[in-house]
C-alpha cells in the first residue's frame, strides 16, 4: 500500500481519508463532532473526502431551523468546508432517494453516486472513519 501513497513536496505522506456520515444531524452529537474532526483534519493537508449515507444525508439539508430543540444550527458550517479545501462531498443515491430528497435539497454542491460506486471509492481509501 505504501508505494501507492503520493508524496507531497515537503516529503510528508498524503493519505486518502474518507469521513463517513451515517447519522441524522441533530439528536446525537455524532454529526457535529464528526464535522469538527473533518475541519481539524484539514490542517494536516491530507486528501480528505466526506460521504453521506443513510440518515447522514439529512446533515446536508437546507433551511434547517433548530430553535425548537435548543441546539446550535451547524448546517451552515458545511458551507465552510470549501474554505478548508474539503471539496469532495459524496451522497449515496439510494439513501437520498429513499428519503424523497434531491440534490436541490442540499446546502452545498455534492456528487451523487450509487451504493456500488461509493463502495468502490471506499475501497480506494487508506483510512475510513465512520460516525
Amino acid at each position, binding site marked *: 500500500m505504501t508505494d501507492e501513497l503520493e508524496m507531497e513536496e515537503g516529503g510528508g505522506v498524503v493519505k486518502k481519508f474518507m469521513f463517513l456520515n451515517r447519522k441524522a444531524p441533530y439528536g446525537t452529537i455524532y454529526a457535529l463532532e464528526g464535522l*469538527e474532526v473533518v*475541519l*481539524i483534519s*484539514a*490542517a494536516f493537508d491530507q486528501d480528505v473526502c466526506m460521504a453521506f449515507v443513510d440518515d447522514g444525508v439529512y446533515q446536508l439539508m437546507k433551511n434547517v431551523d433548530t430553535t425548537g430543540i435548543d441546539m*446550535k*444550527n*451547524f448546517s*451552515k*458550517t458545511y*458551507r*465552510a468546508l470549501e*474554505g*478548508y479545501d474539503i471539496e469532495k462531498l459524496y451522497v449515496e443515491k439510494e439513501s437520498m432517494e429513499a428519503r424523497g430528497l434531491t440534490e436541490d435539497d442540499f446546502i452545498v454542491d455534492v456528487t451523487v453516486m450509487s451504493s456500488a460506486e461509493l463502495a468502490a471509492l471506499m475501497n480506494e481509501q487508506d483510512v475510513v472513519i465512520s460516525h
Partner: protein
Amino acid sequence: MPTVEVAGKSIEVDEEGYLVNLSDWDEQVADYLAKEEKVEMTQNHWEVVNFLREYYSEYQIAPAIRVLTKAIAKKLGPDKGNNKYLYELFPYGPAKQACKIAGLPKPTGCI
C-alpha cells in the same frame, strides 16, 4: 462560570476568557477583551474583528488561521491576508486573540 463586569453588565466567560454567550458582545465588551489581551485596538484591528464576526454569522464557526488568512486575502487583498500582517496586529495568535475579542468561541481546526 466566571463573570466579568463591563459597563455595569455582568458577562459570563469561560476559563480562558472567551464569551459564553455570543449575544453579550458589543463594542464595549470588545474593548474590555482587547485590554485583557493587551491589544490596542486600531481601525485595522476592528477590520479583522468585524471580518471574523461576519465569517461566524455566515458559517457558525471561528475559522482556523490558515482559512482566515486566505479569506481575508480574498476580501481585503494580499497586503492584509498574510501571517505577518495578522501577527503584527495580534501577536499571540490572530485566530485566538481576534476571535476572543470578537466574542467568538475558540477557532475550529487550530492545533
